[in-house]
């Protein structure tokens, strides 16, 4: 994702966010639908296929090396990942990146407990209608997309955790 495009997109996203968080979520076209299946290589470790994780609550965190808040987002997600993984939470970071080198560097620089996946053709980000970064998609145990988050300020983290707990309790 080019810097200018990304910047523009982020401004748009920000504006939307300001309008109403609920509106942002509601406008995401995939809520309530079956999460599109995909298979991606991980930067380290085995290949991953989403459908093999049905039965777990899955969080997809889309990131890019030139997204300034993605680092903080991943760190926040990593914190809740450690807490809830034994309860059945699975997290995947997914790159949205032109340059493989940058993607690899970013993945290496941000140590997290979950797998970081490489999406070289950006097919997955297209499937999931990623329109701005950071973006986090929450998928329930049945494989249905339940929610999407676009920002990770401190107040958002608490809400995100509560939502995770609800999904995990189902």
């Amino acid at each position: 994702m080019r810097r200018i495009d990304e910047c523009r997109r982020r401004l748009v996203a920000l504006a939307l966010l300001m309008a109403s968080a609920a509106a942002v979520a509601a406008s995401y076209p995939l809520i309530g639908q079956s999460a599109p299946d995909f298979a991606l290589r991980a930067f380290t470790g085995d290949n991953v296929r989403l459908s093999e994780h049905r039965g777990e609550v899955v969080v997809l965190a889309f990131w890019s090396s030139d997204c300034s808040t993605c680092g903080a987002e991943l760190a926040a997600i990593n914190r809740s990942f450690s807490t809830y993984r034994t309860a059945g939470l699975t997290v995947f970071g997914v790159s949205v990146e032109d340059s493989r080198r940058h993607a690899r560097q970013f993945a290496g620089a941000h140590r997290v407990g979950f797998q970081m996946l490489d999406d070289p053709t950006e097919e997955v980000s297209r499937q999931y209608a990623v329109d701005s970064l950071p973006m986090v998609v929450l998928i329930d145990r049945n494989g249905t997309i339940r929610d999407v988050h676009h920002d990770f300020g401190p107040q958002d983290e608490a809400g995100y955790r509560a939502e995770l707990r609800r999904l995990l309790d189902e």
Partner: protein
Amino acid sequence: MRRLRALLAPLAVIAALAVACPAGAARRESDKLPPTRVRDLNFGDVLFYYFQGPDKDLEAITRIEAYEHWGLLSHHRPEADLLLGSLYLDLGLHNAAGAIFARLLTPDVPPGVRNRAWFYLAEVWYERGYLEKAEQSLARIEGRLPPQLEAQRTHLLSNVLIRLGRDEEAVRLLDHWQGPPDWLAYARFNLGIALIREHRLADADRALAAVGTLVTRDPELATLRDRANLAIGYAHLQQHDAAAARPALERVRLEGPYSNRALLGMGWADADLGDYRDALVPWLELQRRSVVDAAVQESYLAVPYAYGKLGAEKEAASSYENALTSYGAEGQALDAAIARVESGKLLTGMLAGNAKAGRYGWYRQLKTLPNAPESRYLYDVFAGDDFQAGLANYRELGEMQRTLTEWSSSMDAFGDMIDARQRAYAVRLPRADRLLGSGALDRMQRRRDELASRLERIVREHDVAALGAPDQQARWQRIRAIETSLAAAPHDAKTDGLRDRLRLVKGVLYFEMDAAFNARVWRERRTLKDLDLALHEAEERWIRVERARRSVPTNTGEFASRVAGLETRIAALQVRLASTRAKQGDYLAQLAAGELAEQKQRLAAYRVQARFELASLYDRAASREDQAQTPPAAQKEPPR
């Protein structure tokens, strides 16, 4: 009713398929089995899903049935049937599995396969509670099964006999049974239980003590060991043989699922011998544990009982009061749990479940019970076969709902495809019909035949002129014409001279054409051959078009009606799924609620008992005081 199937399944299927399907089908676990030699690629496709785990079972079943529908599994019939049968079992489809296994019981099926089918059938019957049928099926096995399966067969039979109350036969079966070591402990345990029921305590003691003194690190065997010790301990207690009971009970682990009951029993052993002070030790320990447990609840009455026996009435009274307080608090907790269950919240923690685990792997994860207050009461219920089977049903039905929803959305796409196809055909069909009706191919064929026969005549008659170049042919024609007119003319010097010259010219021309004749014939033949090839291709294409054209009206029309029919079935099944799933959920809640109600009853009984005992204590204390105060002759008040 449904029980051991669950536990037998993984092993049964592993072993059975290990032999039946040399297709390396050690049920999802085999590092040990060799890879398969799959002749049918399609069968291999089924295995690819099968080997991935229980959540792919439905996919595997779908494919195996589809391939059989298309007749693509001819090389693998018995194996495919066995596989399908065990897949059905995995999904809890016992009736369907039984039908398949029964199908395998024809004489032309190899005996090894037949035996396995009987064994599976026996499991199916046992699972469904038809014990005699299970026994009969087992009896139909000829000879011995492979060692692992043979052990399971004995085990299954012993369970059947015990459930039928034929303990003596079970004893005989198990008494001198030598099997694989890991089964031996379980066989001995079963034997011990059967012997107890046969009132052969001494023999039972020997069998159970063997299990009870096992040295093992395996957690399941350790649990079995506890159970064995508990069983023989209580059996002895029942015969008032406290001395025999104690050693067994003492072997039960202090930190384990059976420790509470063991502690209770140890106290009673001491009490039996009159050692009430000693009895207090385990009973007081029990009181420190969670009052949810039945043994703990009983200890709240046992302790004051002991105090009473020791003459410590004040301690007894305060213990009874303690009991009442605890029972009261526990009663409230139970009420809360019952309310939760009745409001339908019980199952939310359990029901999303782990799709990966499948029907039988699931309860390995029973350890991670949901975080709900009622779960601690319901461990036994959750662990019971009825609950597990019901829960598995619930989750499978949910999976099926999801699958059908996906198909439902595909139906629209299919409909679009069929429409598009129909539209395309609407354009192409008239063209195809025109072409087919035009007889063009026949005409081409006839022309070819004409050309061929013409060429043959030319060759036969060595008709060089026929193959001449155009100018040659023109000249030839002129020569022939002149020849003809000369033939009619009288003979004189002039005409003869002309005739001679003509003959010369004709000869030269003939010579030219003749020289080129062979080459030209060869060229013509080549052309004919090319024509043949082209004609052949055209014929093939014609046939294809004809075939396609013939199948079209039935094709799209048929597809359209199939789609419509399937859409109806999807809708109908979705309704049934929702309804049955709801019923299943209610059933599970009922199981839980029933259990809680019984626990509440038991608790209530304890409370009544405690109150009664406490009241008696006070009465006796009061009347003793009265007796102390009034002179002996003036006792009036009758003890209340």
